[in-house]
């Protein structure tokens, strides 16, 4: 190896470095434009998060389906993770079997609306038997019934500029997903589980189901959802309470 750095070599390395820096800056701009940078991209860990999110998003075209199973595969034991909210607003609705419950939809939509449980149940229903894994390591298979999120987004006239949908439940575990998942045919607002209404502790009356991500993205006890083009104004800007607690925003992992 030569110890003398010639002028020619210096110029070549300088140009390579400049090209590399320009290349990276260009790649970052492109990646952001195509929605390949997650909201928790900051810091050292953010590098890993961005690589995982961008590569998995590029691998999955929108219509890639999560595996579906048969009725005989449905788990006999379905652990409960986190009990139903104790707060009055939720308990009152629960006592009345959610007669006065409404799901509010606002943000970048042409027609801000709110839907009753009856409204949601009157729309074309969709069932699927899918696997759900908790980030802790346990998992189960269940049959879920509900209405596709894309159907509801269509009803309210979601703006084409929108990039995310943010979900606010009665408990504190708010979350968000990108439009690729929001419009996916296996992403839906579920009101039924294994042929019955969703049991209280599993997210009654309506929970989100995002079939290609870990369980904590499937927000329970829904109350409101907002369509947006940026996650900056929500919480600490990292797209959900789980990312604030140190869990990946992108949970296709």
């Amino acid at each position, binding site marked *: 190896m030569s110890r003398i750095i010639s002028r020619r070599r210096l110029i070549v390395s300088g140009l390579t470095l400049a090209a590399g820096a320009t290349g990276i800056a260009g790649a970052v701009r492109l990646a952001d434009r195509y929605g390949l940078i997650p909201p928790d991209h900051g810091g050292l860990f953010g590098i890993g*998060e961005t*690589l995982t999110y961008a590569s998995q998003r590029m691998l999955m075209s929108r219509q890639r389906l999560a595996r579906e199973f048969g009725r005989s595969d449905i788990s006999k034991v379905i652990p409960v993770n986190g009990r139903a909210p104790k707060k009055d607003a939720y308990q009152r609705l629960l006592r009345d079997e959610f007669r006065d419950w409404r799901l509010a939809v606002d943000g970048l939509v042409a027609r801000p609306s709110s839907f009753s449980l009856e409204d949601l149940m009157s729309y074309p229903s969709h069932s699927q038997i899918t696997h759900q894994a908790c980030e802790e390591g346990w998992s189960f298979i269940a049959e879920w019934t509900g209405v596709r999120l894309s159907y509801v987004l269509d009803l309210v006239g979601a703006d084409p500029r929108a990039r995310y949908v943010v979900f606010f439940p009665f408990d504190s575990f708010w979350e968000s997903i990108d439009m690729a998942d929001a419009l996916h045919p296996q992403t839906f607002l579920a009101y039924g589980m294994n042929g019955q209404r969703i049991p209280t502790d599993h997210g009654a009356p309506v929970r989100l189901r995002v079939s290609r991500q870990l369980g904590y993205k499937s927000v329970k006890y829904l109350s409101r959802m907002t369509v947006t083009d940026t996650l900056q104004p929500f919480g600490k800007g990292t797209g959900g309470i789980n990312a604030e607690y*140190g869990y990946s925003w992108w949970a296709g992992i």
Partner: protein
Amino acid sequence: MHLGEPMRHSAIVRATHWVMAAATVALIVSGVAILIAHPRLYWGETGGVGGPSLIDLPIPFLLGHSGWGRYLHFLAAWIAVASGVIYLIYGIVTRHFVREVLPSSTDLVPGSYNAMQRGAYTILVFMIGPLVLVSGLAFSPAIASVMPAVVAVFGGQQSARTIHFFAGLAVVVFFVGHLVMVWLNGFVARTRAMITGRASTEGS
């Protein structure tokens, strides 16, 4: 450093070795952090508390503290994969694998030290490494939607998790064995060889 000393490890081998060593330590530490959230292993597609388990590891459940573990695990995995790919390409192109890693016919004397050493490296590089990577990918719901075969090959996502655990354990066993062998053969000289690339025949 004397230039007359024989060149033992090339620059690429040395660089990928240390990057991989750092990534492996990070993967083991973060792997344990993730495991203690649910130290129970299952077989098949599903498994959880209240249902049958394959193995209950003698570790208490320390729920809810594996967030940083997962962030670190994925960052270290990307570094390990990048380093592994560079090493694989290098090993094939320069015939490093054929010359220095795969057991040669002259090594195949039962009980010979060289055969065991080469055998251990071969198993790590070509079997445990790919197994730990693919079994890890298999419990990603996103990857499962793109390549269901990755899950099917293990017989379910919980089976993949169990195999990932044992493949990780094999990495730990190799890591400890490797350190013991380096220690027995002169820690300073061997470590110096892996840093500078040159081996002193007299040790140091």
